[in-house]
């Protein structure tokens, strides 16, 4: 009888209750995250093709990965993605910094401008892609039209066809859409900045540029790193804008990792290979994020002494 004493029962239940309560969350997580992750990792060790389901059961070990090591297209896309990321993040940082500095200086209408600044973020990337596809279109694009009307160019410039110009156009669209992420975070940094160290630096002999370089910039860098962490995740999975504007073309010249992966997985139906690519790309994402996160932690260490 002692086994069923109410006290004992209560204690047993107490031990189980937390796990029971957490179970639904665990199940959802398992279903939504762990299972697909595990499944995709598994498929990256098979020659799985969407059109031949039984290839799912063929274990080929690291074949997909070793194949990728010698795959020029993949590494070209990899390099292009790194380049794309580096240029986009740097341009967005500089443009965002400029905008934030300008807006932090004005005293009238700052809120309105802050809101307007966020407009580009409100559009779906697909729409931004379409919008710029038409801006940069060589026949009917407004840009070529304008250039010709102003006699700045006599022929139609093939913005989305030329290798470098196409990359430029895509980066431009990306920058247009996301510079405000930097601008908003950096503006938050600038507005929260204490006035005293700046004044101390001015008395200490700094000209305005030196104040910016030695005081303001170090103070707002943590904010920039936050923006970069967010954006490096974003840009590393850039797909929509590229897909809409150039589809990775012409002739793969704007192919980034995710357009290549999607093409491999869905158009060529080589899902196993696509997943192997995806896992390598994720390493890239993690590397960028980790890098900025470390910078952020290092920069934040001293912020407590800012009062």
């Amino acid at each position, binding site marked *: 009888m002692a086994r069923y004493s109410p006290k004992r029962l209560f204690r047993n239940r107490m031990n189980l209750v937390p796990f029971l309560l957490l179970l639904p969350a665990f199940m959802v997580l398992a279903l939504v995250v762990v299972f697909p992750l595990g499944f995709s990792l598994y498929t990256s060790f098979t020659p799985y093709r969407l059109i031949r389901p039984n290839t799912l059961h063929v274990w080929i070990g690291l074949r997909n990965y070793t194949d990728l090591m010698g795959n020029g297209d993949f590494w070209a896309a990899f390099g292009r993605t790194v380049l794309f990321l580096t240029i986009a993040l740097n341009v967005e940082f500089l443009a965002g910094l400029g905008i934030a500095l300008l807006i932090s200086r004005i005293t009238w209408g700052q809120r309105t401008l802050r809101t307007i600044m966020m407009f580009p973020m409100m559009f779906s990337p697909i729409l931004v892609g379409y919008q710029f596809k038409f801006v940069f279109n060589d026949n009917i694009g407004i840009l070529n039209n304008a250039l010709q009307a102003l006699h700045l160019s006599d022929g139609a410039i093939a913005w989305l066809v030329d290798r470098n110009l196409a990359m430029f156009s895509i980066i431009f669209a990306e920058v247009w859409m996301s510079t405000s992420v930097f601008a908003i975070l950096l503006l938050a940094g600038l507005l929260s900045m*204490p006035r*005293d*160290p700046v*004044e*101390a*630096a*001015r*008395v*200490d*002999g*700094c*000209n305005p540029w*030196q104040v910016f370089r*030695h*005081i303001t910039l*170090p*103070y707002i860098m943590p904010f920039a790193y936050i923006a970069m962490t967010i954006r490096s995740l974003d840009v590393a999975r850039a797909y929509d804008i590229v897909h809409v504007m150039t589809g990775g073309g012409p002739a793969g010249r704007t192919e980034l990792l995710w357009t290549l992966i999607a093409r491999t997985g869905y158009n060529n139906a080589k899902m196993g290979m696509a997943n192997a690519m995806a896992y390598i790309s994720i390493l890239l994402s993690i590397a960028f994020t980790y890098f900025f996160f470390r910078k952020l932690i290092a*920069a934040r*260490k*001293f*912020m*407590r*002494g*800012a*009062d």
Partner: protein
Amino acid sequence: MAEIVLNKLVKNYGRTRAVHGIDLSIAHQEFVVLVGPSGCGKSTTLRMIAGLEEISDGTVSIGGAVVNELPPRKRNISMVFQNYALYPHMNVRENLGFGLKIAGQPAADIAQRVDEAAEILGLTELLERTPAELSGGQRQRVAMGRAIVRKPAAFLFDEPLSNLDAKLRGQMRAEIKKLHQSVRTTVVYVTHDQIEAMTLADRIVVMRAGRIEQVGTPMEVYNHPTSAFVATFIGSPPMNMLPGTISGGAVRLADGSALPVPERAADNAREGQEVLLGIRPDDISPVGHGLSQDGPGAELTLTVAIAEPLGMESLIFTRIAGQEVQAKLYGPRMVLPGEELVFRLALDRAHLFDAASGASLEAR
């Protein structure tokens, strides 16, 4: 040579005027303290000297040259801020050497001067720490060190001690005084703490609502306040003010009792004039427990309302002619509320002010 001259200095914030035309000459190596209640324009004046605040009218000269149009970096001054204003991302060594680095000094010189300043201020152990890792007092010292390494023509302090606790404040006060004696430089020091003003200043400038109320050595300001405002502001506890009317050569108080007109004001007091009789707590004491026992005085029997024993002395709250006053009792004697004591008022040290204007009636 770094004398600082303010000439009809004015500051307007929009339509409100914060500083109303200040004239002040500060001699080379002089320690001048600007003191006054909150919002009287001390910081604004100091910041105009530093170049951090635009000058609306008038001029500031440092070392004989008008500096109105010069940015702070060209004025050869150092400033210590109330909130220390250390550079959070630099360690103590970098904080101290920053000004020299910006000035393009060779690294060896910077290191030597930083070490020197750190030595003077006892910061040698802390050189590698960041401001976040320092206590308030240590941050304050770093802020001072940063000011002295540059060997400027003048130091400007804006309430540098107000964020410290009372004990540390006393300690730092002494250190600032020592510092001024070793690094003889012109100093303009802003505070609203009259004890700091009294202990540090060669000359005190008492400000009120954007104007200078009185300038003088601490003793002049304490012993010969030119207005009731200065009299109550300088000295702690503040001077007691008894309202009354001049009548028949005496000050007639609210309850009809009369006290003789203090001798120093005898020539200026007009019959019928509304006045304030000012007398410091130190000059109202129970008979046998005061500082001065001779000279002209008046004896009054008063009832003790509250007594605060401080050890060798007690602060007593009582009333004269309905007006609450504070008195001092010297000596280790217990006093109880409700006790009736005979107090002696040392009237030779009392002051008389015009009630309407607040101006002192002391003959000069």
